[in-house]
């Protein structure tokens, strides 16, 4: 996963770092809720809601330019459409790993 340069991103958008970090925290909170929903969708093989949630995460992560999550959500959306549950299981693990990395990176920056 590419390291996000929060300071640079905040400058590009034209907001201060504190504001940007609060948006990332909002994204993290939302996505944590989405991940537990996705776990339930996968166990119930509910491809329709899994696809819709992946689509929303894709849009939100694109908004913040978290490209590792954009790509993973894009794959999850596509595999949900074809109901390829093996690929979904494997991509979902990858998605969660990327998410954990994002969280720890965010925490580290906030603690600095």
């Amino acid at each position, binding site marked *: 996963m590419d390291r996000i340069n929060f300071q640079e991103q905040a400058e590009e958008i034209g*907001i201060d770092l504190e504001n940007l970090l609060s*948006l990332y925290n909002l994204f993290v909170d939302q996505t944590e809720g989405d991940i537990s929903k996705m776990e339930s969708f996968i166990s119930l093989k509910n491809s329709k809601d899994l696809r819709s949630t992946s*689509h929303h995460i894709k849009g939100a992560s694109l908004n913040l330019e978290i490209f590792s999550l954009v790509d993973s959500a894009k794959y999850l959306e596509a595999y949900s459409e074809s109901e390829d549950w093996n690929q979904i299981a494997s991509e979902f693990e990858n998605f969660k790993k990327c998410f954990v990395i994002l969280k720890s990176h965010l925490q580290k920056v906030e603690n600095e």
Partner: protein
Amino acid sequence: MSNTPLKVLIVDNHPLFLESISRILSSTEYEVKTAIGGLEAIDLIEEFHPQIFIIDLIMPYISGEKLCKYIRSLDTFKDSFIAILSGIAKETEKISIPPGADAFIAKGPMKHMAGNIFDVIDLYRNKKRDVPFENLLGLNEIAPRHITKELLFSLRHLEVLLDNMREGVIELSLDNRIVYINPSAVKILDSSEMDLISKNLLSIFHNEDRQKFKTMLSDFDSGLKVKDVILSVNKHFVQIDILKVVEGTVEAKIILLNDVTRFKEKEARLQKALAEKEMLIREVHHRVKNNLNVISGLISIQSSMIDDVEVQGMLLEIQPRLQSISLVHDKLYNTEDLSNIYLNSYMEELAMLLIGMMTNSEFAVNLDIDIREITLDTDTIVSLGLISTELITNALKYGFYSDNPEENTLRISFDEGERNRLRISNNGRPFPVDLDINSSRKLGFQVINLLVGQINGELELKRDPVTEFSIIF
């Protein structure tokens, strides 16, 4: 530039987009409010009076397109600027921009969206409207995506269907606010789409109608099924079904309204025609009864002019027979059912009538009826009435010794079964042993045997302990 902050309302069902755009506009130049959906936006706009709206296209309940239409229906917002925000911008070959929108912003990375949002603000300040291609912002900054395109296609497809359906369709949020209404439902409610959108369904009805809808919705909310309920709404008779729709975390109620006014009017006309027909049939029965009574009266007058007692008696024997038929028509005239008659009340009245005709202060008879409430068809009743008239007349004429009513009992009973049995019995004088009821040449028995045959029945006689005739049919 004016020092008054520019009022911006952002409407999106995704909190991150709401927050992102709010942060982009977090300066004293702007006064920003956010709404998490179309209903919340409608609640805010009158009070906040935004100059710029930034609205997500696809949202649950009230879509961006519908909200745009609603805003444009209000005169106070005719100068406001509406920018539609969506991830679909690059997905459609021909971009479909909601009527009334002034600009279209593609959803994408914040840094690009930030620039596009400021461009929108410039467009508003420069009063550039009507969505020329230059107002489609951010198209070159995002990669093609497909899901929303499919979603929009099915949405358009459904809209065409819903707009052309004869049935009215209303979608309600959980708190019963109208978030969608199709043209047929608008017609039934005799209003306009934009006057109804976001209103609580109950608020558009008055008094009794409101109470009926309130009960129906609360029944539905408590888990009861609401199907084929017919209510009168705005001079329409409407058949109502309510369905629940759950899509992810969004729940809605769908009300289907089927206008059955024409059928109800037809039904009312048919009921009126039927009532008129029944009234006519009753009138015919009334006249037949009266005519039979006239004939009976004529016979009575005719008999009084005959000196021969035997001939006079023969003529007078016709009267009870006529009375038994007249009583059938009287019953048909006075009851709701025009094809069946209650046997119990008919037999009781017939027996009373005959006793009244054939007894006097010196001779009385005690009547004992044991028949439960049961109806028989008119033809059977006419036959049973004539048979019973003969048997009761015989009993009254020949069956009793005494003048004391305590000692004279005429009993009529009925047993229902695979073969029904009507019994007529009298105590007192035994039935003559030498009289064969099957071959008697007396007119009375000839009538009895003929009518028993007509109802495919049998006649039985028991002489002991009392004289008892049974008609089995």
